[in-house]
């Protein structure tokens, strides 16, 4: 036991190993989180689509009990047996509740595993590669769609940093000083997937879909990049962790209600920030190829869009790529405008102070057992709370994405282009000048 602890101490004491191990752990956490969110957002999408259209959505998918029978259980109605075993009469309210929960048929999960069922279905489907496609690109395209958003997510901070006895862990996979640029670069890369898919399919409608995706992405990348500049001017940093830290201390970009956020300058800056927010969110919608901007897969005029020729898991990876882009996009909006992991109302600063104080009391010789445990855990508790805040915000924003999808009809392609080049571009440029003026004149 002592040997293991010594080993651990020596490994973690080395800064390189410490960095490597924590980074891999964070990487795994972020990856799992994103993929879970993809699955969850499919479920959220379908359920909310249902509710908005006055129907339940997929609420039935559970683990059917007859599967158990397949695996050897001869019992036809395990529920009845279990009720008898616990001595519950068949017409009591407990039995009725169990029946209402469909426990007699399945282990209910309220449709939560519907995405898994869908995934399994897609996995088992026949993989068709038409003879006329350009094979290499055809196979590479889905990877180009799925990969870049996952890489882009590396710079998203999902919690603040925590001090351990081996050093500080920054809760963000790669704490890059060019975080915002990194995200733009990689989210822009994902369009290569769509373009390649459209082109390699060697078929006219997918080709038009791919072209549309390219045109749309270039247009909205411009608007997106310009819309974010006022924000970067305000925070004067490109590091996402620092941006969030700043927001935690001085009020979220859109909710400046504490710290320095109460100054006149911040309140006047709220106008350009709101404009930035509108342009940025719209551009994120366009970038993630979501309705009302899903021109690239507009099934009414393009058969299926860029993925017409795809089937089975290749098709599914396009689908997943789209959802990953959506999740990463929402996370980015939250990080930049809604305080990222920050709990809000100055609570982050208080919690950080509390954690520090607890650590000092805990390391004291005179500390009780309880105090020393708290001293060790306080930092982690704060980080966990902030992580929960991040997740809650992320779910809320994913809900918003879905909500918009089932409200707005698709734009026409010329309208999409017009909106970007004739409206957003100009407004974003003016917005930059406005922010500069405010920053210069109102101190």
């Amino acid at each position, binding site marked *: 036991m002592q040997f293991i602890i010594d080993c651990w101490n020596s490994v973690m004491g080395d800064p390189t190993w410490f960095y490597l191990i924590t980074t891999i752990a964070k990487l795994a956490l972020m990856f799992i989180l994103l993929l879970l969110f993809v699955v969850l957002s499919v479920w959220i999408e379908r359920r909310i689509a249902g509710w908005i259209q006055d129907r339940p959505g997929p609420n039935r998918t559970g683990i059917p009990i007859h599967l158990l029978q397949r695996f050897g259980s001869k019992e036809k109605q395990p529920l009845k047996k279990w009720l008898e075993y616990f001595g519950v009469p068949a017409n009591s309210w407990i039995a009725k509740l169990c029946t209402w929960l469909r426990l007699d048929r399945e282990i209910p999960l309220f449709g939560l595993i519907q995405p898994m069922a869908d995934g399994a279905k897609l996995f088992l489907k026949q993989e068709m590669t038409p003879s006329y496609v350009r094979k290499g690109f055809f196979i590479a395209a889905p990877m180009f769609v799925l990969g870049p958003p996952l890489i882009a997510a590396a710079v998203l901070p999902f919690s603040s940093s925590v001090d351990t006895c081996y050093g500080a862990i920054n809760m963000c996979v790669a704490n890059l000083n060019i975080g915002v640029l990194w995200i733009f670069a990689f989210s822009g890369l994902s369009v290569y997937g769509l373009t390649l898919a459209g082109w390699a399919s060697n078929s006219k409608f997918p080709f038009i879909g791919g072209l549309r995706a390219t045109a749309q992405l270039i247009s909205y990348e411009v608007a997106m990049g310009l819309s974010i500049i006022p924000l970067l001017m305000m925070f004067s940093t490109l590091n996402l962790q620092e941006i969030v830290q700043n927001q935690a201390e001085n009020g979220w970009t859109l909710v400046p209600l504490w710290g320095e956020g109460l100054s006149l300058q911040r309140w006047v800056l709220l106008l350009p920030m709101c404009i930035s927010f*509108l342009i940025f969110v719209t551009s994120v919608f366009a970038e993630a190829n979501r309705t009302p901007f899903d021109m690239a897969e507009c099934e009414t005029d393009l058969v299926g869009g860029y993925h017409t020729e795809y089937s089975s898991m290749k098709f599914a990876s396009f689908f997943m790529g789209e959802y990953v882009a959506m999740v990463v996009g929402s996370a980015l909006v939250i990080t930049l405008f809604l305080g990222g992991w920050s709990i809000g109302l100055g609570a982050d600063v208080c919690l950080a102070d509390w954690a520090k104080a607890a650590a000092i009391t805990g390391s004291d010789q005179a500390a009780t057992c309880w105090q020393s445990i708290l001293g060790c855990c306080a930092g982690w508790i704060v980080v966990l709370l902030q992580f929960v805040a991040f997740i809650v915000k992320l779910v809320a924003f994913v809900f918003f994405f879905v909500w*918009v999808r089932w409200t707005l009809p698709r734009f026409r392609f010329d309208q999409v282009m017009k909106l970007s080049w004739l409206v957003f571009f100009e407004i974003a440029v003016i917005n930059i000048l406005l922010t500069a003026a405010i920053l210069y004149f109102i101190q």
Partner: protein
Amino acid sequence: MSYTPIKRPKFSLADRIYIVAIAKGLCRTFKHLVLALTRRSRHREDFNSKGIGLCMPFPEQRWDERLPEYYRGAPTLVRGEDSRERCVSCQLCEFICPARAITVTPGEVDPASPCAKQEKAPKEFTIDMFRCIYCGMCEEVCPEQAIFMSQEYLITLTDRDKGIRDKETLYKLGGVRKGLVNKWNDHK
């Protein structure tokens, strides 16, 4: 003038920047969401729905009593009120069937039986429910009013062999119909 130009409405700036309209739309859909979840959707009573929104959760709540009269379910064979087999195995349904689901093997009627006048009756009559597309052409083409579309819509099989329905099954499902065909009566 052969055409009248449509007068396009002039949109104000507020209309053209969409934001108000989008907000209104979002409110409308959110209202539907909340009403569906709190089980207060509009026209819910009309449907007598027990699920979320306007849905009738299918296996628990059926809409059988709402089936329209013209609903086309599984095709069945019927007997007359004198329990006469109406089918005279003319095979018109077999020929018209676009999915080739029907197979008729004609047979003779026993001269001693009360409906000997019709001379022919099917020896075998099978409908392959895996092929049937419920188009109702067999019912339409039948000169003897012998084949009818029933209102049975729930054809869920656990056994492939049960998908091919033979004469007995079809007669059992079809039952007895009254009136309409009297030309094989002895008095005529």
